[in-house]
């Protein structure tokens, strides 16, 4: 045994050329698997960091707890850590409320400090940068009796839900109720543990779609989801079944590649192995020797594969990071568990896939008996006139050969079918993601809102600044107010600046002073697809009406505008409007605000709120200029959104993601072709002596061609017949899994292109192999080919 092992090592050294295909396929498949492991662990880590960054690293938060409930929590054996927080007071200023909280916990985990330090006692306070900006607070200023010691960018404790309130923190304790941020010891059955804790606290719940919705409870589900924990069992099942399906397909893919290359390398060493067995090596010994060889090959391949995958994943990460500018910053994460799983997976795949050819060549009695049984003494008709007519007598030989030698034939078909399935499935799934990225479109403009809340500066002044930087651009300045019509549909009342108003009128051919009604709304049809249709019946609506809703009584307060000349249009003006919009002159707008709305809300605010839309190719330069204006008027609350820039960045990223996905499709196609080529080539090679015998008893080259042609046709036909429906089935299955319990259902599209590509691909490859092997046979001497196999 020892000597055979050293023979295995000796073999590797001397036959390094013959082991190259095996090494390459092991390296390629290992690289694929490790890269996937690295990419998944990097992505998961980024998700976890993202979730932690935005929501904090706690698992669940309870609010409004009494001190008895707090004690209950401390007795919960599942809980690892509890961070407690309490309300202090609210300070009301003229336009906003400052809610102050206190805690003894380590704020570092929850608050991103911008400047200063965290509070250390109940007299020190940390406030948000937003509040500092709005109220012009600086470090060491005082809010009532609290001294500002720090300013933070973002807190993960209290999310700011409304514009009129801000959050600040001090340190210490008081007698108020508690907010408790809970970390459990582990994430096993985490949702059950949370339910259990909430039950112990005596909290009520409602059952909703995904699970239980407890009162005063906030589950940090984005963090838990990032760890692969879903409240909805279906979601979890969906994720894991998708992962296993993909792993399964990948494993098959890799196993096939390794099986092929190992078979080829063994084919070349058939002679050597039979000599070994003739001098007395047992089948078991030969088998062990071959497996040792594979093991050593894998050991050699792994470090190379590891380096390759690190390089690939790192470059993809750099590519994505660069293209996303500052939006995300992925970092390569080498998760040992993932790595070990990948390596284990590689060993398993390599062993299983090389075992079959090793058993076969070592002449294991098991495999032999299978082999012998499989060439069936099938009763076949003497003659097949139809086949003889089409393909000649050679065709008949081929047909009988296939009928009797189903095992070999089925092996080839299986290999071809798997490659086909892989190609169609993976490309369709990837294609789905590519399409998904295509549909992520945003409006392509720059929007600025100038609200008027007791502003120190006249909005006109800011407007003039904006006008100055956009002299060359398309600029729409409008005033907008939102109301309802009699059917409680939301109505946008808009006045455009005179220039744009007149232009719009010209565009839709309105000459009088009419009210233009942009009568378009987006609705969902019965298939949950968004459709665009007219909102109101233009033949029935005779006068313009807008209403207020008193939310306390839910009553409508109508106020009619004296305009009977209504003009309905579906033609948008520079994509300014969304939904049902009444476009009126500035006078009408002011008239409505002044006369009809006095007494409701702060009508002055409506009147002086400006909405500005800029369409420009200079979006990057404008971004800087607009930000300068915003900084100049930092005390004015200017809302600014540069969709053009976001779109530009997104498109850039999408382009790169698409590129990567197309590269993946290409790699899959390439490997599939290689696989198919190997399978066919091996099966042709194995039969070359049979072909030569036929030649020697008088089959002409033409006849041989005919015979191989028929066999190829049968292969092609069978592969397509099995492969395409199976692939479509798997594609449907994946869509089905992805669609379970998801509101945005994926609409299945028949992967026409990929089906066509694969049909053409299969035909081309088979034709190629046919010509290739026929040419190879031509070159060879008949008698030599026969001899090679006879030894």
């Amino acid at each position: 045994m020892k000597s055979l092992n050293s023979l295995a090592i000796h073999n590797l050294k001397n036959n390094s050329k013959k082991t190259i295909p095996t090494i390459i396929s092991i390296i390629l498949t290992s690289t694929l698997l490790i890269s996937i492991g690295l990419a998944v662990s990097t992505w998961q880590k980024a998700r976890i960091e993202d979730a932690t960054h935005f929501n904090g690293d706690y698992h669940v938060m309870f609010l409004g707890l009494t001190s008895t409930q707090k004690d209950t929590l401390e007795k919960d054996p599942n809980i690892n850590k509890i961070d407690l927080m309490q309300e202090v007071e609210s300070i009301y200023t003229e336009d906003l409320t400052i809610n102050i909280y206190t805690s003894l916990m380590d704020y570092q985990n929850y608050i991103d400090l911008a400047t200063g330090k965290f509070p250390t006692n109940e007299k020190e306070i940390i406030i948000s940068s937003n509040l500092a900006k709005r109220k012009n607070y600086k470090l060491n200023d005082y809010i009532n009796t609290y001294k500002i010691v720090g300013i933070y960018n973002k807190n993960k404790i209290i999310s700011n839900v409304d514009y009129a309130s801000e959050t600040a923190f001090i340190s210490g304790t008081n007698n108020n109720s508690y907010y408790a941020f809970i970390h459990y010891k582990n994430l096993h059955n985490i949702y059950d543990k949370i339910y259990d804790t909430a039950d112990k606290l005596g909290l009520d719940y409602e059952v909703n779609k995904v699970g239980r919705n407890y009162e005063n409870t906030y589950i940090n589900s984005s963090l838990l989801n990032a760890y692969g924990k879903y409240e909805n069992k279906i979601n979890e099942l969906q994720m894991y079944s998708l992962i296993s399906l993909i792993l399964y397909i990948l494993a098959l893919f890799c196993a096939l590649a390794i099986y092929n290359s190992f078979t080829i390398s063994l084919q070349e060493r058939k002679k050597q192995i039979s000599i070994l067995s003739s001098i007395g090596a047992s089948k078991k010994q030969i088998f062990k020797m071959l497996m040792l060889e594979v093991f050593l090959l894998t050991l050699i391949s792994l470090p190379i594969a590891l380096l390759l995958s690190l390089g690939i994943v790192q470059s993809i990460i750099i590519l994505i990071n660069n293209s996303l500018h500052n939006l995300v910053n992925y970092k390569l994460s080498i998760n040992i568990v993932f790595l070990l799983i990948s390596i284990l997976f590689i060993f398993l795949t390599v062993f299983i896939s090389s075992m079959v050819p090793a058993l076969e060549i070592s002449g294991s009695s098991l495999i032999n008996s299978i082999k012998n049984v499989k060439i069936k003494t099938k009763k076949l008709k003497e003659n097949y006139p139809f086949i003889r007519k089409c393909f000649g007598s050679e065709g008949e030989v081929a047909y009988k050969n296939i009928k009797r030698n189903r095992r070999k034939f089925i092996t080839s078909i299986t290999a071809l079918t798997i490659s086909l399935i892989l190609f169609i499935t993976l490309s369709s799934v990837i294609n789905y993601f590519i399409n998904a990225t295509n549909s992520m479109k945003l409006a392509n403009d720059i929007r600025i809102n100038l609200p008027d809340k007791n502003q120190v500066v006249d909005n006109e002044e800011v407007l003039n600044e904006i006008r100055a930087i956009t002299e060359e651009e398309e600029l729409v300045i409008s005033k907008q107010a939102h109301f309802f019509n009699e059917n409680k549909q939301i109505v946008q009342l808009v006045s455009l600046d005179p220039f744009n108003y007149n232009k719009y009128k010209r565009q839709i051919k309105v000459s009088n002073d009419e009210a233009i009604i942009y009568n378009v709304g987006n609705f969902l049809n019965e298939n949950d697809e968004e459709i665009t249709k007219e909102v109101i019946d233009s033949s029935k609506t005779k006068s313009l009406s807008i209403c207020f809703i008193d939310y306390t009584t839910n009553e409508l307060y109508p106020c009619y505008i004296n305009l009977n000349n209504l003009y309905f249009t579906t033609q948008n003006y520079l994509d300014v409007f969304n939904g049902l919009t009444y476009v009126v002159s500035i006078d009408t707008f002011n008239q409505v605000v002044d006369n009809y709305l006095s007494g409701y809300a702060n009508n002055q605010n409506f009147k002086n709120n400006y909405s500005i839309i800029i369409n420009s190719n200079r979006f990057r330069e404008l971004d800087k200029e607009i930000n300068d204006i915003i900084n100049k008027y930092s005390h004015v609350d200017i809302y600014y959104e540069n969709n053009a820039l976001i779109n530009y960045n997104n498109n850039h990223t999408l382009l790169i993601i698409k590129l990567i996905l197309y590269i993946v499709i290409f790699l899959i196609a390439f490997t599939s072709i290689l696989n198919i080529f190997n399978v066919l080539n091996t099966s042709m090679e194995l039969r070359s002596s049979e072909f030569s015998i036929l030649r020697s008893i008088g089959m002409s080259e033409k006849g041989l061609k005919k015979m191989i042609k028929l066999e190829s046709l049968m292969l092609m036909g069978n592969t397509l017949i099995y492969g395409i429906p199976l692939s479509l089935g798997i594609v449907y299955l994946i869509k089905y899994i992805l669609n379970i319990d998801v509101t945005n259902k994926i609409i299945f599209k028949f992967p026409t292109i990929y089906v066509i590509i694969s049909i053409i691909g299969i035909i081309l490859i088979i034709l190629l192999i046919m010509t290739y092997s026929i040419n190879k046979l031509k070159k060879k001497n008949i008698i030599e080919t026969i001899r090679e196999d006879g030894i």
Partner: protein
Amino acid sequence: MEILKACNLMKTYGEDNNIVYALKDLSLTINKGEFVAIVGSSGSGKSTLLHILGGVDKPTSGNVYLNEKDIYTLNDDDLSKLRRKEIGLIYQFYNLIPTLNVRENIKLPLLLDKKEVDENYFNELINLLNLSNRLTHLPNELSGGEQQRVGIARAFINHPSIILADEPTGNLDKANSLEIVKLLNEANKKYNQTIIMVTHDLNLAKYASRIITISDGQIIDDKVYNEKSE
């Protein structure tokens, strides 16, 4: 009557320093109805000669005439036709098609020739070769001797002008070997079938009507026996 004639056959393998002369200017004539045994030590060039005579290997120089046709001037189609009509080859390792059963293997040359089988002749052959109850078996279900008998039947089925057998008994035990050679002898007499058989067993060569001895790619002895000993 002269049926096969080989003139100045040369066959070399390799080049320059490694050149091997398998056949050295070998000439030979075979008459119809002869049962020729070619004997010689291993590596003397027997197989090379037989393959060249059978149209499956090409001589480096020289000509082979079968029924006065120079076979190596034919194109592939015609040479293939000649192989299946005029020549029957029998190998040491039987070389049957594993997926065809006995009947189909035997009829294969006819099938390739798109000729109908002469059932009488077929039955006669399988009776002679004692294969009648093996017709639906596949090659791997047969013993070595049986497989070789199938090989012989396949070689005979087309009434070839000449049968070439390269150590047809090389892989068989003594009893089976004797049986095969006796069969060849019987067929030779019954159908006046020309047969060339390579063997290194002088006991088997005795059944032939002519023994050609080759050494080092050359004929060193050529004896005709009119009365064969049993």
